[in-house]
């Protein structure tokens, strides 16, 4: 350790020496000026007081008639012009001595740069904003319709298969651990660290997607840099924000009503093994209206109505900014609350943040951030759990039953909750009323960033970050109304019956972060501008968790873990991981026209093995090395562009470099023993992993090129990027040697690539005095291809489906059977396969034939038998295009924002539909099964109902794969700034907005924006999580 420190110190000293030497050589030369007029682009009126800036040392303000004169460092200087209410714009002097400029209203700001938009928003978590603002830059897929649950984000394809593929999150310079491997005890719930930041506290977001390697082994998936709001001036500014709204009940897959369901029942029971006597004994099939229990079993309950209702959403926030010469602060406090659309669910969040900037003398200042957030949620299981997820149960539960007990005594429905029904389906009302699913998330963050300005061009700064992140979950399902579940062990052997479940989980993560760096900025001979940073980053995480589970509490009042529970499980862990990085970046530009940069990062992590294929060693530690270089050419600043006046800006960019992914598991390189249970109570230890010191980071090599083009007096803005990423050392599995007794181990052997492009087009469609219309559209395309797998192709089964990972294919391909329709008649079924019909082989070796009303699966190998050999690729969840269309309009004091998001060309495995149309049991089904095959000769696309589905009509086939393309009118927002001058307040804005207003899609499920979880292989799988629904909000913002 000491040795390493010495090494680093000597590098620093060396750099300082170089810097001061160069500094000493700086020299002065003649002074040059540029002058002109600055006008409003819409009205052509001169702008008074606009600020013109050239480099960091020269600036000027316009006069009353809009004229300015400014000293510039070089002939081809860049001018940055800003004025309140206007877009900050960059102009190139192109060697001219006079330059007349026009400024656009801030309505025309690019969505991603629009800082104002982070306030007065409906968004509870940042991802909602990123989706609309960074359309093409980040692919954002909502996790579910739960408020603040967040989204899965991917930048430029999938750069990993088994390690994390989410972008790195950096908040105020501090790396946030994304807790990718932390699972909630509540099904379908996610731990979302971004929910810890109130969107209104965000000042800016920047997305790093190019080859820059400054984040080294953490940067392969791109980086999202978030800055929180700080005080900007000494004048005290107080803002009060309030918002309220309603979340509409979601649109659900329609299911059969009582009469449709009853006719389905008679149909499916025909193929069941139940004898006529036992069928006749089923209470819901006894149709004697005089029977005492008739009313108990003959209803038409709409379970969707019973479990869902409209939700609500509120937000109140107060922020204060101000200060004096010594210190400037920004303080904010906000409460966000929501009642979910699933009855019994809610969410509330309290945020507080105190950011300050303190000047300690002339050359030293300290920035601090202190934030505390508590997010509380009350949830129920979501997804496809037939026992405990009220949403799914509302689809499958027979409409004939009641949620409350029917008494034959008074022949009336009581207020007592009914038990699970005779089809063994839980009563969702009881789970809602008596269940518990509470999640509490706390985060306390404290950062301090002292900065010492050593001289005009050199700064030393250091960020110390400390955060405690805590999660507490408690889960309880009631005995009343819950269908008992048979518990099975990992060998699928039953060991007990659960009548209800209690689960508790507590996790705590402590992160310590430090980033110390020298920053250097200097111009030599006016034309040579050099800047750079050299830093040392350190991140340490301590993670502890405890988990307890038990069953059969015996009643609905014993809701906590206790020794009396049965089938108890206890789990816990302590994990520690550290990483450190030495990084440097140097920028050079010549004449503000040619830009060059180079960055390098050298990373070590406790996760890296000691004998890795790549990297180098310092002492015992393995360091990975990530170099990158880039260049840009501001073509429009060239004197030869002077005559092409319709081109305002033409910038060409290119970069190449390497980044890495260190999310390879904390202990995977080490041999370890894992505990097992022996004879109920005793603990045993078994070898469960072999040491592999070759285990290392995944390496992603990135190449990219881009163009920024502004045309026709800045009316048209075009930006385009192409890229190619090659990821090698992909974390993949290899089979252990038989003699080791272990299954498989992780190796860095696979590779994949992503190629793609991103384009965005901005148009200032209308720019008159009163009406302004800014239009932006973006599109992104990526093509993912796996290029090598050490152990060959493989499939992963996911909820009845199968995902193919194969060389030459993109990740996540759906792999199954191909349906060619339904055999309308016995003759048609017999005719295929040369008149022999199609068969399946049963488990015991015998054969069964497909017949009329069964699905005609493609017999790919033509052997007459439908089996695994007939599986093929049946869908691709990767979209061809994703992006957003953003319109910002303003009319006098009104502004109207209309945002569309879209995805084109992606397939979805509709897992929920595969269950709701399986027609293999007595549970309720979607109305699509009304078209099922019933009689010989009937031509339909829905097969016959068949109890137990012995022939496998509902198997994973392209029946369940759908086109997931969509165009969503994601957000419409109208705000009005009251034209009132008052002594009481500076400004008052009222606004109203609708989220998720309209969706245009062919997708049959509730929401085409779906993914089962955040792992690459689970994208495009509709697991039936709560769909997004329409949200209406109104709000008011008061500036005091």
């Amino acid at each position, binding site marked *: 350790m000491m040795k390493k420190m010495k090494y680093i110190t000597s590098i620093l000293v060396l750099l300082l020496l170089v810097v001061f030497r160069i500094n000493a050589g700086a020299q002065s030369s003649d002074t040059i000026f540029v002058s002109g007029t600055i006008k409003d682009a819409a009205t052509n009126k001169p702008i008074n007081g606009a600020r013109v800036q050239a480099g960091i040392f020269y600036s000027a303000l316009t006069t009353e008639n809009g004229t300015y004169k400014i000293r510039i460092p070089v002939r081809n200087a860049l001018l940055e012009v800003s004025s309140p209410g206007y877009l900050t714009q960059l102009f190139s002097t192109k060697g001219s001595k006079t330059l007349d400029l026009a400024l656009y209203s801030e309505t025309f700001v690019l969505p991603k740069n629009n800082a104002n938009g982070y306030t007065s928003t409906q968004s509870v978590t940042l991802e909602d904003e990123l989706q609309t603002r960074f359309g093409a830059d980040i692919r954002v897929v909502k996790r579910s319709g739960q408020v603040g649950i967040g989204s899965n984000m991917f930048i430029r394809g999938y750069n990993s298969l088994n390690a994390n593929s989410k972008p790195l999150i950096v908040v105020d310079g501090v790396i946030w651990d994304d807790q990718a491997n932390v699972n909630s005890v509540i099904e379908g719930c996610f731990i979302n660290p971004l929910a810890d930041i109130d969107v209104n506290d965000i000042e800016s977001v920047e997305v790093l997607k190019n080859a820059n390697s400054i984040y080294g082994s953490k940067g392969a998936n791109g980086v999202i840099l978030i800055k929180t709001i700080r005080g900007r001036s000494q004048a005290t500014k107080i803002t009060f924000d309030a918002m309220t709204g309603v979340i509409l009940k979601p649109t659900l897959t329609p299911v059969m009503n009582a009469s449709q369901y009853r006719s389905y029942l008679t149909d499916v029971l025909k193929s069941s093994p139940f004898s006529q006597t036992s069928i006749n004994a089923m209470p819901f099939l006894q149709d004697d209206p005089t029977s005492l229990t008739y009313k108990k079993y003959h209803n038409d309950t709409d379970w969707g109505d019973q479990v869902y209702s409209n939700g609500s959403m509120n937000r109140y926030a107060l922020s204060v900014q101000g200060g004096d010469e010594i210190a400037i602060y920004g303080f904010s406090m906000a409460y966000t609350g929501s009642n979910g659309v699933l009855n019994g669910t809610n969410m509330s969040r309290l945020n507080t943040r105190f950011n300050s900037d303190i000047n300690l003398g002339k050359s030293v200042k300290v920035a601090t951030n202190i934030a505390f957030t508590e997010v509380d949620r009350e949830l129920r299981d979501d997804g496809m759990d037939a026992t405990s997820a009220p949403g799914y149960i509302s689809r499958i539960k027979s409409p004939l039953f009641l949620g409350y007990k029917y008494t034959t005594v008074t022949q009336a429905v009581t207020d007592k909750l009914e038990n699970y029904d005779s089809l063994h389906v839980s009563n969702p009302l009881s789970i809602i009323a008596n269940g518990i699913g509470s999640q509490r998330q706390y985060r306390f963050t404290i950062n301090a960033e002292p900065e010492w300005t050593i001289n005009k061009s050199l700064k030393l700064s250091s960020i110390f970050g400390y955060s405690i992140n805590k999660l507490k979950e408690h889960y309880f399902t009631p005995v009343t109304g819950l269908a008992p579940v048979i518990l099975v062990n990992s060998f699928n052997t039953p060991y007990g019956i659960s009548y209800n479940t209690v689960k508790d989980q507590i996790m705590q993560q402590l992160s310590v972060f430090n980033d110390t760096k020298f920053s250097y900025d200097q111009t030599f001979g006016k034309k040579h501008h050099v800047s750079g940073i050299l830093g040392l980053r350190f991140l340490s995480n301590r993670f502890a968790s405890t988990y307890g589970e038990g069953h059969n509490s015996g009643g609905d009042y014993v809701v906590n873990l206790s020794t009396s529970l049965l*089938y108890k499980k206890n789990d816990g862990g302590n994990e520690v991981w550290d990483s450190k990085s030495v990084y440097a970046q140097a920028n050079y530009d010549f004449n503000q026209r040619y830009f060059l940069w180079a960055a390098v990062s050298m990373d070590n992590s406790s996760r890296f093995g000691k004998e890795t294929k790549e990297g180098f060693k310092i002492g015992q530690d393995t360091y990975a090395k990530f170099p990158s270089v880039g260049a840009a050419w501001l073509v429009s600043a060239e004197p030869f562009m002077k005559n092409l006046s319709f081109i305002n800006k033409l910038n060409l960019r290119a970069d190449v470099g390497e980044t890495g992914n260190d999310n390879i598991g904390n202990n995977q390189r080490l041999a370890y023993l894992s505990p097992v249970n022996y004879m109920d109570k005793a603990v045993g230890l078994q*070898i469960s992993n072999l040491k592999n010191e070759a285990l290392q980071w995944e390496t992603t090599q990135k190449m990219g090129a881009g163009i920024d083009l502004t045309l026709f007096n800045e009316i048209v803005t075009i930006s385009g990027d192409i890229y190619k990423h090659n990821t090698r050392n992909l974390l993949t599995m290899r089979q252990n040697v038989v003699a080791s007794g272990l299954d498989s181990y992780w190796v860095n052997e696979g590779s994949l690539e992503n190629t793609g492009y991103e384009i965005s087009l901005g148009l200032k469609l209308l720019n008159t005095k009163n009406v302004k219309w800014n239009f932006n559209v973006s599109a992104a395309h990526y093509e993912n291809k796996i290029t090598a797998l050490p152990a060959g192709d493989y499939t992963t089964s996911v909820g009845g489906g199968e995902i193919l990972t194969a060389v030459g294919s993109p990740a996540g391909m759906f792999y199954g059977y191909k349906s060619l329709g339904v055999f309308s008649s016995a003759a048609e079924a017999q005719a295929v396969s040369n008149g022999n019909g199609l068969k399946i082989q049963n488990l015991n070796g015998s054969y069964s034939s497909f017949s009329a009303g069964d699905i005609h699966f493609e017999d790919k190998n033509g052997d007459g038998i439908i089996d695994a050999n007939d599986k093929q690729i049946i869908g691709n969840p990767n979209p061809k295009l994703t992006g957003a269309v953003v319109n910002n309009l303003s009319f006098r004091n009104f502004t109207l924002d209309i945002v569309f998001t879209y995805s084109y060309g992606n397939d979805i495995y509709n897992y929920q539909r595969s269950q709701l149309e399986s027609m293999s049991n007595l549970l309720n089904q979607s109305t699509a099964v009304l078209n099922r095959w019933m009689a010989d000769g009937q031509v339909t696309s829905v097969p016959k109902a068949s109890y137990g589905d012995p022939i496998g009509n509902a198997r994973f086939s392209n029946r369940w794969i759908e086109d997931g393309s969509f165009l969503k009118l994601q957000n419409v927002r109208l705000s009005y700034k009251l034209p009132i001058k008052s002594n009481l307040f500076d400004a008052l804005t009222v606004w109203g907005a609708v989220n998720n207003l309209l969706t245009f899609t062919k997708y049959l499920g509730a929401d085409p924006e779906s993914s089962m979880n955040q792992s690459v292989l689970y994208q495009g799988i509709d697991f039936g999580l709560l769909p997004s629904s329409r949200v209406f909000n109104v709000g008011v913002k008061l500036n005091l």
Partner: protein
Amino acid sequence: MVLICLTMLLPGCFQDETQSILLEGNQRINTERDAFYAMNGILQQLQQIGDNYVIFGELRGDLMDVTTKTPQELRDINDFQADSSNTYIIPKKYYAIINNCNNLIAKIDTAVVTNGSKTLMYDMKAAKTIRAWTYLQLYQIFGNVHYYTQPILNVTNQKNYTDISDFTQLSDTLLADLKSWVPGDGILEQYPDAVVINNVPIFYTSIGSFVESKLFIPTRFVVGELYLMRGNYAQAANMYYQIMRTYSLTLINNKNAWNSTYTAYDTPNWPKLFTDLTLNEQISLIGYSNEYTSYFLMPSLTNTSNYVFCPSSTAIKNWEEQTYSISAVASLSGDLRGKEGSYSTFTSRNDVNDLVTNTYITKYSKIGNFIPICRASLIYLRYAEAINRYGKPNMAFTFLKYGLNKSNLENTFYVPAKELKNKDAFIDFGQNKLTTDASAILFASNTGIRSRGCGDVTLNNSFKIPTGGDSITWVEDQLMTEYALETAFEGNRFGDLMRISNHRNNPAYLAAKVAAKFPTAQQSAILTRLSDKKNWYLPEKK
């Protein structure tokens, strides 16, 4: 230094699945507690191969058969046509036992003294024995083992093993490893003992319903098996005899019989050998618990609802062909250990509503929650097999018909004096020097094992060694029948058939036995297949 950090809650009210323990540096297992955890890990892995032990031992043999409900993969094993993709072929689970044993053996510090004794020695011995037993299983399944004794803990040394496919070489190696751990004559086997943690005694006995010693395998048993398979009959007989002596094993009582009027069965006593663990029958077993971790599928695979395995026609014939002796002249047919202990019948309807009678295995529903690895009858049977080949067929036959004890052995009508002349210590059941020995008195009550299901066999005059033939082969055939009557479906059968075939140097012996359970049309194919010894083994998954 105690370096394995133990953070587990014990003996919790919770099923504990706490954090992983990193194997960094030179950790030693030097407390009873560390050894206890490591040993539990091994025993839990032993549980995971329990079903396979039975499937490979019986389905490949002549006593167990498939039913209409049997999955194709098990049919393939039954037909000797399984390929390496067969999911029942799980060599890794066997090697997991070996690697964990290797780890314990490599790290355990046997010099540690607790309460005046080197207790960790017993953990070492137990692990070495389990390891050898597992190698023996692997050899019997695959005909080849990947032999290694240092733990594989690093992906780079995964191939640090030697392939051994020659049994002499394997048995030499295993015997060399075990010899010094075999207890001396007359000394009881010792096993890992009670552990006290936080003042709470954690005995193996408190785990499930099993006495600690039964969860381990006697070293002498594995050594005896190795000797027997090699044809070192005297050494083998000596090992089994040592077990009988030190465990005081006798074959008395516990028979299935008709009632005194021969109109109904008496209360079956023989199945008690599998349910009453206080009886001195079950010596070593793979135990399972009832609550969480029952990896043991045999009871459900053999019951009438799943009905994956059934007794073969050969097995049923073996029982039905026996004579139940009432007197020298009167007899009934059938060995009562069949229908009254090992199998039974149930009726079901086939497609045309005809009632069909099916036979099914009941042994596992009686056994409950363990798989017997070695029990008293098996030890005696092995012993008889060894002394028969050692040249004492009459003594071996005495074991079948009369019982091994002083008076029977001294009866020259039963055992000619020349068979007992050499006075090997291991043939002494009291007839030599043990008259005053307590265990000799114990042996005095030994009766013929066949009487456990066939009434008073001593009255059966036709049950005798034929004159003028090869007595040893005849007695061995009788012993093979006795193995079938007494130990059917317990997992030994295919190993027994292989051993006898090898001793007779006649692969057709095994082939014919196994082929007999198949329908006539299939028999010749099976016969041909199994006449080639390499088809006896399963392919190892790559």
